[in-house]
């Protein structure tokens, strides 16, 4: 099976994000960048599908400035076969991203698309669903388990939804977005890192794809959130319960 996996470069989830004083963006100095954690899960799943089926190809795709090749290289070191890099310096909303990805899908013709359920920078949780709509493909978001039919023509996906686990099925091709429990991503091995240096990262320009990438969603301004002040420390359980009862009046 040929699987396409999307990779986004995002600030390390452990890093502290601050807004620039003029509200035009975030402070990027000293911020470390990583593969979006959910995309890492998506790469891992694609690799496991390939290993289990004993064949196929895992192709990574990322959109952004030249530096995203760092994250693509990491994904290749995990075991992906090759990568596509769409060079684009401007900020894109999820619809523009989905439009570019739809063109890549047209060119590559994968049977399966695996994406992270959400990027932890803009927290939009939109691109996978939008891409599925543009392609007219079925979608299974928030996936925690995949089961392919014996002929690998269809899949049943267990999804983590409110109040339980839902299972849906569809014939491929389709879009799957990975939730936390789908798997635990592997680390790149040293031989993997060596091999990755020789793997192809193909660069494509936006103009080559001929897509309108005007963002419908425009960020007007960024501000820091209202700060909540920490309160007091209490010494004993007794004192805590008394305060919750008499002062805060919540129990």
């Amino acid at each position, binding site marked *: 099976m040929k699987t396409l996996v999307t990779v986004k470069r995002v600030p390390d989830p452990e890093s502290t994000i601050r807004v620039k004083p003029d509200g035009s963006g975030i402070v990027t100095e000293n911020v470390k960048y990583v593969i979006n954690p959910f995309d890492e899960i998506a790469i891992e799943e694609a690799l496991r599908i390939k290993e289990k089926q004993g064949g196929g190809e895992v192709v990574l795709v990322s959109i952004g400035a030249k530096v995203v090749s760092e994250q693509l290289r990491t994904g290749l070191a995990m075991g992906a076969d090759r990568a596509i890099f769409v060079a684009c310096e401007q900020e894109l909303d999820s619809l523009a991203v989905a439009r570019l990805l739809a063109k890549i899908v047209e060119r590559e013709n994968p049977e399966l698309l695996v994406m992270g359920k959400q990027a932890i920078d803009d927290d*939009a949780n939109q691109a996978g*669903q939008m891409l599925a709509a543009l392609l007219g493909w079925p979608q299974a978001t*928030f996936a925690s388990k995949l089961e392919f039919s014996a002929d690998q023509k269809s899949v049943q996906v267990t999804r983590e939804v*409110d109040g339980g686990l839902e299972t849906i099925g569809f014939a491929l091709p389709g879009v799957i977005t990975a939730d936390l429990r789908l798997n635990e991503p592997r680390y790149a091995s040293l031989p993997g890192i060596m091999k990755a240096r020789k793997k192809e990262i193909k660069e494509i320009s936006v103009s080559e794809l001929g897509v309108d990438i005007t963002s419908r969603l425009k*960020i007007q301004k960024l501000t820091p959130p209202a700060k909540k002040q920490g309160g007091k420390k209490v010494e*004993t359980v007794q004192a805590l319960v008394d305060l919750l009862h008499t002062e*805060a009046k919540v129990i």
Partner: protein
Amino acid sequence: MGNVLVFAEHHKGKFPKSTLVALQAGKEAVGKLGGNCLAAVVGSGVEGAAQALTGYGLTKVLVADDPALANYLADVYAAALAQIIKAHEVSLLIATSTAIGKDLLPRVAARLGVGMASDVVGINADGTFTRPMYAGNVMATVSLDGAVKVISIRGTAFDATQAGDQAPVEKVTLSLDAADKKMRFVSFDEIKSDRPSLTEARIVVSGGRGLKSGENFTTYLEPLVDALGAAMGASRAAVDAGFVPNDLQVGQTGKVVAPELYFAVGISGAIQHLAGMKDSKVIVAVNKDPEAPIFSIADYGLVADLFKAVPELTEEVKKIKG
């Protein structure tokens, strides 16, 4: 300004609080931007259920009834909503960021070729929206271009709507073709619990990695949860460690809660967890590490070994509750 359409999510014909919250956001949008507020009830055999929404001061309750809509499936539901939007001059579509809202709305937006803002916490009079980014470390003011705007709203940012004038129920005609019915519902495995749901509970008690095991959630945390009549939550670290199911996760990539009282037990307070609970009215932290970041946002902090403190806490709560 055209009409505001609220996707009225229901579970087997019952409308959860998250739907009443979306209706409130819809009414607020109409108040600020104009138009009429419509609700869309989508399903099979839901005309009777839709009656439950007639008393909230809406202009119309639209019912999209079709056997193909019996179970929620993104492709066919998106097709239905896109048709309703075109037929009813809708310029703003709203749903709450539930699992269904998150799954469905981007698909509708892309079908219509328009943009979307997720997890909106403020609808502004100038037509912009306020939403968090970067795990709530940044608040963004955003605008959406295009004839239709699509927003999902954060359930904790709006109140449940109040009763109002009667609205008529109107059936809508749909034409759903095979291309929109590629997905198939297989099963739903409900996690049964007598406790209130995480996003609707007045009190939430969450455990973190400090609990050390799933058994300790049962032995130590659950008695406190039940003594308080609370919902149980967990940090991502506890979910990652396999102590509890992901359904309980509170945080940036889990559920966002804002109860009257939030207990963080054995949770250090990673950015991604704070994103899901920092709007709680009263926050209590129990942690043995006095430097844990959770204390910086807790109203009441107790530096203690949770394995000693939590059973004591449970006993004290029981005494008060009598």
